[in-house]
C-alpha cells in the first residue's frame, strides 16, 4: 500500500496498545487538503487517542502517520508543531497567569529557541498579528486581561486563537464547544467555518447539531476502529452507527 501524495494527513495501520488493550486498532484515515473532518463515536472509542498519536503526545505501537508525506511518528511534540500541526485540548489549556496578549505572543511562531526568546522584541508585525487573531476570536477588548479570569467559553476561544496564530496546515480540535452556551456555540461554528479555509481541520465533537453545521465528512470510531465514514446523512442512516452511538 502506498500513500498518496495528495493527502495532508495519511494514517495507515495505526495501532497503539496500552498493556495489551488496543485503544486504536489498525486505523486508516486520510484527510484531504482543506477538508474539515469530524470524528465522532462513543466514549472510549479512541478519538482523543488518535489526536494524541498525531501530535506526538502518545507514541504509536505500530503503523505510520504521514503529514504532507513526512513521517510524524519519529518526531517529538515541538517538531510536529513546527512541521505545521496544531492541537487544541479537550479542557482549555492556556497559560492562566499570563495575559491574553502574552498567551498569543508566546504562540507566535518565531524565535522559539533559547537565544531567540532572550532577544525577542515586540515588533509592529507581531503586535498587528496578535490584534488580528484576537479580533477573530472575539477577545480584542480583553488583550490585557489575565487569561485565568476569562469565562470557560472565552478560554476555549483563546486556545483556538493560540493555534490560529501558529497558522498550522492541520488543525486538530478536541471538543471545541464543550461547556459553551448556545450563543457561544453559534459563534464558534461561525469561527471554525472561517478559519478552516486554507487548511485541513480534524474536529472531535459530541454535539450532533454542531457537527451538522460544520462537517464536510464524518468518521465514526468504535473500539479503536472505523465503523463508518461518509457524509453526515450517510453516517446518520447507517444502522451500525445508530446501534452503537446515535441510537441512544
Amino acid at each position, binding site marked *: 500500500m502506498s500513500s498518496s501524495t495528495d493527502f495532508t494527513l495519511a494514517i495507515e495501520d495505526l495501532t497503539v496498545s496500552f498493556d495489551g488493550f488496543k485503544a486504536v486498532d489498525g486505523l486508516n484515515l486520510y484527510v484531504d487538503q482543506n477538508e474539515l473532518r469530524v470524528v465522532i463515536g462513543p466514549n472510549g472509542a479512541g478519538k482523543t487517542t488518535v489526536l494524541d498519536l498525531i501530535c506526538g503526545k502518545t507514541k504509536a505501537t505500530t503503523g505510520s502517520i504521514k503529514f504532507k508525506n513526512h513521517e510524524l511518528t519519529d518526531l517529538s511534540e515541538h517538531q510536529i*508543531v513546527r512541521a505545521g500541526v496544531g*492541537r487544541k485540548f479537550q479542557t482549555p*489549556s492556556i*497559560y492562566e497567569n499570563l495575559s491574553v496578549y502574552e498567551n498569543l505572543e508566546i504562540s507566535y511562531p518565531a524565535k*522559539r529557541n533559547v537565544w531567540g*526568546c532572550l532577544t525577542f522584541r515586540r515588533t509592529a508585525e507581531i503586535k498587528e498579528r496578535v490584534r488580528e487573531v484576537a479580533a477573530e476570536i472575539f477577545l480584542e477588548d480583553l488583550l490585557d486581561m489575565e487569561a485565568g479570569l476569562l469565562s470557560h467559553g472565552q478560554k476555549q476561544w483563546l486556545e483556538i486563537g493560540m493555534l490560529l496564530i501558529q497558522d498550522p496546515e492541520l488543525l486538530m480540535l478536541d471538543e471545541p464547544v464543550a461547556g459553551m452556551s448556545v450563543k457561544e456555540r453559534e459563534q464558534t461554528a461561525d469561527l471554525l467555518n472561517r478559519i478552516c479555509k486554507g487548511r485541513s481541520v480534524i474536529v472531535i465533537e459530541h454535539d450532533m447539531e454542531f457537527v451538522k453545521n460544520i462537517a464536510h465528512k464524518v468518521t465514526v470510531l468504535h473500539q479503536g476502529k472505523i465503523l463508518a465514514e461518509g457524509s453526515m446523512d450517510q453516517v446518520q442512516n447507517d444502522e451500525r452507527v445508530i446501534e452503537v452511538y446515535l441510537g441512544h
Partner: protein
Amino acid sequence: MTAIYKNLLGGKQGVIGLALLAALIFLVLPMFLDIFRLNLVGKYLTYAFAAVSLVLIWGYGGILSLGQGVFFGLGGYCMAMFLKLEASSPENTAIQSTPGIPDFMDWNQLTQLPWFWEPFNSFPFTLFAILAVPGILAYIIGVAMFKRRVGGVYFSIITQAIAAILTILIVGQQGLTGGINGITDLKTLHGWDIRADSAKYLLYYINGGLLIGVILLSRFILSSKLGRLLLAMRDKEDRVRFSGYDVSNFKIFIFCVAAMISAVGGAMFTLQVGFMSPSFVGIVPSIEMVIFAAVGGRMSLIGAVYGALIVNFGKTYFSETFPELWLFLMGGLFIAVVMFFPNGLAGLYEKHGKRVMEKIKMLRSKPTPPVEKTLSGDNSSATARKAA
C-alpha cells in the same frame, strides 16, 4: 503574582526597590557596622546569590533544586584552589617533606600536585572555572534529567542526592580536596592580603556590586520572552511543547544560569571568609538556601536578598542566644512561611505594604526614604515594604 511579576520588569517600582537595596548594602550597613559585622553581612550576601538563583529556577521555572549548595561549593572550591596554591609557595612550605604543594596533600603523603590542580595556578583560568565547572555540571545534570522529562519531586530528590554525593566525595578524597576540614589558611590574592581590613572592605563592595549585577541580569532574563515562557512552563508544560518549544532546552538554560550565579556567590564566600569546606556544599546548606528564597519571596529577586539577610541575622542572633533552639526555629520559620505567607516578604509587601506606603505618602511632609528603619534587621514589616 502577576503584580509582582510586572514590577520586576522594572518601571518605577523596580528602580526604587533596587536603589533602596543598593543604598542599604553600599551606604547604610558600612556606615553603622564595624568591619567584623560587615564581613558577616558580606558572607550573608554571598548566600543571597544562591537565593536569587533559586528565584529564577524555583520561583519562575517551577523546578525546586535542592542542590544549589553544590554549585555554590564548586565556585567556592575553584577560588579556594587558586588561593591555596598561592599560599603554598615553596618558601612558605619549606618545612614540608614535599615543599610547594598544599599542606593537606603533604599530610596525606602526596608528593606531586594532582593534574586537575595544575591549571588553578592561573588566575584567569580560575575565574573561567568558577563559572564553567558548575555550568558544565549543571548542563550534564540538566540534559540527563530534563531531556528525559524528569521533573517535580524526582528532580528535587536527585539534586539532593548529588549534594550528598559531592560532600562524600570531597570528604573521602582528603589528599586531593582537604577532606572534612576543607581548604583553609588562605592568605593572599596575587600578593594582596585578603585578611586585612581594607581588603575586607573592598571585597564587601565587590560582592555587593556583583550581587546587584546578578539581579539586573536576572531581571533581563525574566523580563524577556523567556521569563514569560518560564511562567507558562511552570503552569502548562505540555501546552508549551504544543506551541512549538523544546521545553527541556529552556529548563537546561535556566538551571545552568542559576548554577553559575550560585557559583559566583561561592567564590566571593571563599574570598571573604578565607576558607571553603564541605559543610557549605551538602544537603543542609542547600535547603537553607531554599529557605532564604522562600522567606524573601520566591517570585522576588530583591526579596530573596532580604530573605538571606534576615534569616542569617536571625541565625547568628539565635544561635548565640539559644543554641539548642535554633534549628527548631529555622524549621518553624520555613513551615510558617509556606503556610501563612507563601509568597514571602515580597508577598506581604504586595498585600499590606503598598497600602501602608500610600498612607505614608499622604502623611509625610519631608521626603526621607525610610531606609534606617531596617537597620535593626528584625523589623520585618519595614523590610518587607522594600522587598518587592
